[in-house]
């Protein structure tokens, strides 16, 4: 294996990894904040890609502006779906509701949402793949290593978002409120935090992250209605590797799985997904809560 190939594979792995990181951070914020296992997350990612496609290609808005707009659109989608579905389901829970029941009800609600969003997009846009021209088509060359500028920008962008999230979570009052609610909603209420609004903000923020991830990836890969279903399995894998409920774990897991898939596809082909799964199972034997997570019940 030449160095050039190696670097190319690493960069491809990191590009994959950085989209996984954005998606899984969104999934994790929702999971930690609201205790909802959101199966519709892949569809939020797909909707992000489609809104970007619509703004950028159909209405000729500037790329960065359309990225922001598709993030905002997904904030709206997330907030609305929380208000109309998950909030209603969660309001029924009392302190004595068994955990299994809470998990099942919110997960099933997200499955319902997933079916509707998935098939709705399919009917609205058709099964055809929507392509977008590359926004930054330049190629950077170091010796015999050729990298597209776009891929490097994606990696930088997701690092930027991670840093922004860190500031939001640990340096602002809103972040403190979100962390308190995820620790215990009742204690948070005693401190004068309105848990319901924080739940909604967590859900909207998580959806926006998925939407932005979809928007970033839209110029690189084709936009299809099934892209969300494909990515959600890998996203869950990343969540398990890193540890449920650990933001650092999401980043580490995203990089690991991204690299594993990039090298696996090059050397083994489609079967590499199986190996990654076996690898995750082995990790879980030794580290039940994932690499950086704790065991959550």
């Amino acid at each position, binding site marked *: 294996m030449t160095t050039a190939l190696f670097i190319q594979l690493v960069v491809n792995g990191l590009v994959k990894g950085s989209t996984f990181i954005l998606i899984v951070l969104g999934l994790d914020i929702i999971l930690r904040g609201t205790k909802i296992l959101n199966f519709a997350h892949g569809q939020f990612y797909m909707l992000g890609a489609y809104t970007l496609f619509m703004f950028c290609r159909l209405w000729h808005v500037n790329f960065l502006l359309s990225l922001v707009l598709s993030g905002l659109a997904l904030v709206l989608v997330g907030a609305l779906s929380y208000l109309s579905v998950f909030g209603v389901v969660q309001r029924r829970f009392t302190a004595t509701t068994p955990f299994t029941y809470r998990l099942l009800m919110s997960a099933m609600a997200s499955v319902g949402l997933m079916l*509707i969003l*998935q098939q709705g997009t399919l*009917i609205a846009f058709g099964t055809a793949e929507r392509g977008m021209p590359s926004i930054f088509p330049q190629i950077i060359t170091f010796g015999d290593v050729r990298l597209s500028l776009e891929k490097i920008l994606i990696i930088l962008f997701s690092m930027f978002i991670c840093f922004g999230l860190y500031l939001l979570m640990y340096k602002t009052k809103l972040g403190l409120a979100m962390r308190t609610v995820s620790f215990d909603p009742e204690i948070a209420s005693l401190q004068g935090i309105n848990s319901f609004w924080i739940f909604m903000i967590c859900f909207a923020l998580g959806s926006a992250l998925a939407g932005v991830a979809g928007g970033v990836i839209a110029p690189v890969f084709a936009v299809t209605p099934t892209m969300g279903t494909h990515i959600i*399995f890998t996203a869950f894998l990343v969540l398990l590797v890193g540890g449920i409920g650990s933001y650092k774990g999401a980043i580490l897991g995203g990089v690991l799985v991204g690299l594993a898939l990039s090298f696996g596809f090059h050397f083994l082909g489609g079967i590499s*997904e199986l190996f990654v799964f076996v690898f995750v199972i082995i990790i879980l034997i030794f580290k039940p809560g994932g690499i950086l997570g704790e065991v*959550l*019940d």
Partner: protein
Amino acid sequence: MGKSLINRKMSKNRLIFGGMVLAALVLLPLAVKNAYMLHLFIMAFIGIVLGMTFSMLFSAGLITLGAGAFYAIGAYGSTLLSTRLGLSFWAALPLSTLITGIVALAIGSIIVRHPGMAFTIISLLFAHVVIQAAGQIEFFGGWGGIIGVERPDPLGPIQFTTKTSFYYLILFLLLLTALVFHALYTSRIGRIWRAIKLSPPLAETLGINLYRYRLLAFVIASSAAGMAGSFYAHYFQMITPEAFGGWLSIYIQLYAVLGGLEFYILGPAIGAVIMTFVPEYLRIAKEMEPIITGVFLLVIILFFSGGILGTLQRFWTAKKTSVLSGKEQL
């Protein structure tokens, strides 16, 4: 004294009702001559078995999204046994059930350790990976699947060439599963599962080994799904990975949620029958079906969280108490 009398009367009513349903099911092929209708009943019965496996895990406080995986393992195991080793259906069915149980034991001993969200996610991933493995590995037939699975050998005078014979076969398997599951639910094991579901820490203080009993539920439920898979393979005489992927595991849960989560046998039965027949009668365009399923699911969760049976039961008890309170006022 009075209470036990009422109980005896109720269980007598229940027996009569159950007997009537059973008689109707046995006599059904005499009334239904349409082969397609019988096919729908057969598919609904397979769905009931799968829904019951979901409910069994739910009764032990586990939520699985991977029931389809063990259904697939049973189907593939049975197919490989009969096409590669030339075993007859009657040997392949119990053997593939056993194989599914062993796989479930191996996988379960790792994943049941982390109940809660991790279990749910891993079961979903496992289902995904089983389908991928079946499609990617040539030994399992690849994405094209395996065709030419043998029909069951004749059993004495019974030839398995008509839908009616398959109907009776799956009816027998369904009743067998329901009986075994019912026996388990009413036994000590079932009560332990209920205790675990209600409160794991409390169950642990009673000296219950949570891990062992959860694993037991996982293995039994998965074996039953494997048995259904074996029947499916020999009924269709061909299997493809797609038949077990996609929305299947989601539909299986839907059966249990729609019928009533707290009714471990009747809930999936009602849910599966409704979900099989209603779309047929509405003649909905195929592409609208997932949307309608999704809306259906949301409506049940938002407004009738007890499912059909749970809502009926609540209605019934509310009526009774209102009659009682009316009497008190008089």
